[in-house]
Each structure stands twice: as structure tokens, then as C-alpha cells.
């Protein structure tokens, strides 16, 4: 069951990622990226990380991508033009080559490192998994062991807000 769901949503992920590369208009690429994030949220659910899945949908797909869509709408970005000095052969051969090369490399590494022997989603994860991935256990870790990075990221977000407001302001 987990395998079937993984294959379906993995295929959706990869399909949407390739669609992002293939589309000419940035709004289509943005929508493909939202599909990627949605299917990744489902994969996080399969991996038992339900809080991360919810945060992925709320923050990443529901706020960051809205920002992207707003900017594309505001700037009225048109279709992309391919300038004459980009080589089509390089793109047609190089893109699948890169993807395939990286996939094969990871596969080989994983086989040799023995990651294939242990399967995720088996009975070991399901039993006693009430405490794994649910908000209170993640929160315990976040607010005790990782309190300093948490506070630092809040300062980072404040700096980002100030920077974005200053940069995007019209010079009056």
C-alpha cells in the first residue's frame, strides 16, 4: 500500500518537476511547483511526519508560492524567449543526462551502503508511532534542544521582512 502510494505520488512529483522545466510561461512553472510541493507533502505523510506535511502545505505551498504567483502577476511576466546563442543539442542531451546520472549515482551509493535492507513504513514504524512526527514531540525537540536556532531564525525572518520592504519600495 505504501509502495503504491509512493509510486503514484513520486511519479506526480517527477512529472511536475519536468513540467516546470518544459513550460515557457512562468505561471505554469509556478503551478507545477505547487503540485510538486503538494505531492511532497503526501510523501511526508507516508514517512510519518504529519506535522511537517501540514507545515509544507500551509507555509511553502500556501504562502511562499503565493508570493511567487503574486510577483508573476504583478510584473506581468510574459513567455520566455530563447536567445540565439543557447545550444539546443546541449539542452536536449544534457538535461536527461544530468537527471539520469544523479539518479544512478544515488542508487549505486544506496545499494553499497546497505540502505536497501531496511524499509520505511514497515511494522517497526507503525507500531508505537503515536509519538513520532506528531506536533507535540516535534515541539519538544524544537523548543528544548533547538531553541537557539529557533530564536535565530526568528531574527532572520525579521531581517528578511525589513529587507523586502525596503527593496520593493518605490523611490518617491
Amino acid at each position, binding site marked *: 500500500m505504501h509502495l503504491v502510494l509512493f509510486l503514484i505520488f513520486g511519479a506526480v512529483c517527477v512529472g511536475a518537476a519536468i513540467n516546470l522545466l518544459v513550460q515557457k510561461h512562468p*505561471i505554469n512553472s509556478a*503551478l507545477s511547483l*505547487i503540485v510538486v510541493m503538494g505531492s511532497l507533502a503526501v510523501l511526508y505523510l507516508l514517512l510519518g511526519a*504529519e*506535522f511537517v506535511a*501540514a*507545515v509544507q*502545505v*500551509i507555509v511553502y*505551498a*500556501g*504562502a511562499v508560492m*503565493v508570493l511567487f*504567483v*503574486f510577483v508573476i*502577476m*504583478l510584473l506581468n511576466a510574459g513567455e520566455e524567449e530563447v536567445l540565439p546563442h543557447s545550444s539546443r543539442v546541449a539542452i536536449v542531451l544534457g538535461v536527461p543526462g544530468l537527471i539520469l546520472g544523479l539518479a544512478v549515482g544515488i542508487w549505486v551509493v544506496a545499494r553499497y551502503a546497505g540502505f536497501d535492507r531496511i524499509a520505511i513504513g514497515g511494522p517497526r514504524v507503525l507500531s508505537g508511532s503515536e509519538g513520532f512526527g*506528531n*506536533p*507535540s514531540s516535534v515541539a519538544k525537540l524544537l523548543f528544548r534542544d533547538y531553541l537557539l536556532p529557533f530564536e535565530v531564525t526568528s531574527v532572520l525572518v525579521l531581517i528578511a521582512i525589513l529587507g523586502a520592504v525596503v527593496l520593493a519600495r518605490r523611490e518617491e
Partner: protein
Amino acid sequence: MTIGTYILVSIIKIVIAMLVLLTGVAYTTLAERKVVAHIQNRWGPSRVGPFGVWQPLADGLKFIFKEDVTPPFVYRPLYLLAPVLSLTMALTAIAVIPVGPWVSVGSVHTPLQIADVNIGLLVILGLTSIGVYGVALAGWSSNSKYSMLGSLRASAQMVSYEIALGLSLVGVLIYSGSFSLRDIVMAQSGTFLGFIPKWNIFTGQFIAFFIYIMAAYAETNRIPFDLPEAETELVAGYHTEYSSMKFAMFFMAEYANMFTVACLASVLFLGGWLGPVFGPPLLQAVLPVVWFVLKVLAFIFIYIWVRGTLPRFRYDQLMAFGWKFLFPLAIANIMVTALVVALR
């Protein structure tokens, strides 16, 4: 219970929920027109059936038979996707809302909720976040300046008030200790002094309740926050170029969102299905659902009442209200609630 029984029971629950929700949405339109009419000292729809009862049916038939005009200059894929997205997200939210306690029908013991996930509240917040895309893409794909402006304003408003909405719910979470809506309702059981129920609105989340109500009115684009779709402002805002069934889908999505907000408010702040339960066992099984429905209807009535009474905010007043008043107030509410709970 076996997987087959579980699937069958879930399908039955989904069908019942969809029927009730869609009928409720249709009759909310009638209720709105009649209540607003009575506020304005007139009758409202009263011709089509006794007290205008068949008016929603007539409206539905009208929508189906209207000519579906798709302007030639729209960006077709997104134009068709936007109402579907809005309606899907609005209707899916009913899946995690608990209507009643566990019931036993024959040999099947099941909760009155389609999906009792332990992150129920986050699911609803996530669906609201994705619902913004329906509005944004509708306006952009329509390729007309009214739609574009209306949708930019509407989505900016929705995104801003989502923050106040989420933060107002954190106070309730701190009290209940769980994201699951069923656990939040169960944490409100019991009474003070024997007759005042321990609902969250009475045990200190009063301010959170009002922040939630105001943020929810802004999220669902209702008066007093409905500038993006006011007829006197921007023709019809982001759904200017939509006609017939697609417009009906936006319309239904707005009312379904109202329903979700009302259900969520009654679950989080008014104790869900909790209320005095008495009588023979059949009455005892039905009474919690009756209390829940009464609370939801009370909310919908308040929604319509506010619509008939208040003028609308100007856009800059609206944004200032969301960012400069509700957001700091929600954070203050969280801090005070956390302090109270920590010192217990």
C-alpha cells in the same frame, strides 16, 4: 473494524456530509436574502414557494440553463481551474469537522466525523491557504483590469488575515493540548457551578473568539471586508468574467467557506456538540448533533446579521486593521494564555 467496513462507512459519511453541506449552502442563500430583507424592512423572496422555500431550487435551475460565456481573451487552463480549486478546497474542509461523539450503529462503532486526524486544525488552515489560489488565478487568467485588481486585493486581504486567523487559534491549542478537533471539543466538557459550560469562550478565549470572527469574515470576503467583490467598486471583482456554472461554483465556495468557519468556531469556542443530553437512548444519540447544528446556525445568522448592518471597510483601513490591530492583539492573546497555562 475491517478495511471494507471502514471504507463503506466512510463513503456513507461523505455522501451524507456532502448532501447536507450542499443543501445547507443553497438554503443559506435563501436565509441571507430573507434576513437581510427583514433588516431592511421588506419581505425577501416569498413568491416561489411558501416563504420562498423553493427559491434556491429556482436559482440552481437558472444557473444551469444560463448561457456559459467564455470570453475569447482569457487564459483558458487557469480560467477553468480557478473555480474548481476554490470549490474543492471549500468542500474538503468538512472532512475533519466532528459533528458528534462516537456512535454505535449495529456492530459498527464509529465517530461522527469523516477523518479524525491528529492534525485536524492544520488541515483546515492548509485548505484555506490553498483556497487563495482560486481567487488569485481567477483574476489573473481573466485578463481584464477589474478582475486583476479585484483578485490582487482579495488575495492580499486573505493572506493577511490568515495570519490573524491562525494565531487566534493558538490560544485554543494551548488550552487543549492537541491539534485534533475531537480532542479540543472533549477538553471543553464539564461545567462551572453546575450550569455554566466550560466552553473555550467562557474560560478565557474571549478575545481569541473575536479575533477569530473578524479574521474569518475577512477570509471569506464578507461584509465588512468585502471590498474586492463589492458591486459598486470593481464591477464584480475577480469573478467578473465568469458566468453560469463557474460563477455558481465561486458562489457555492464562498458559502461553503462560511459554513466551515461557523463549524470551526462552534467546535473551537462553543464546545462543539456538548450540551445537556437527556431522554431515551435514541434522543441521546441525536441530541449532540442537534446542539452542533444549532450552534452553527447561530453563527450563520450572526454572519448574515453583520452583513445587513455594517458598512464596508476601505481597502487601506482593512489592511491596517489586519496588520496593525488584529495581529498584535493575537500575539498578546497567545502570550497571556501561555502565561496563564504555565502558572497553573
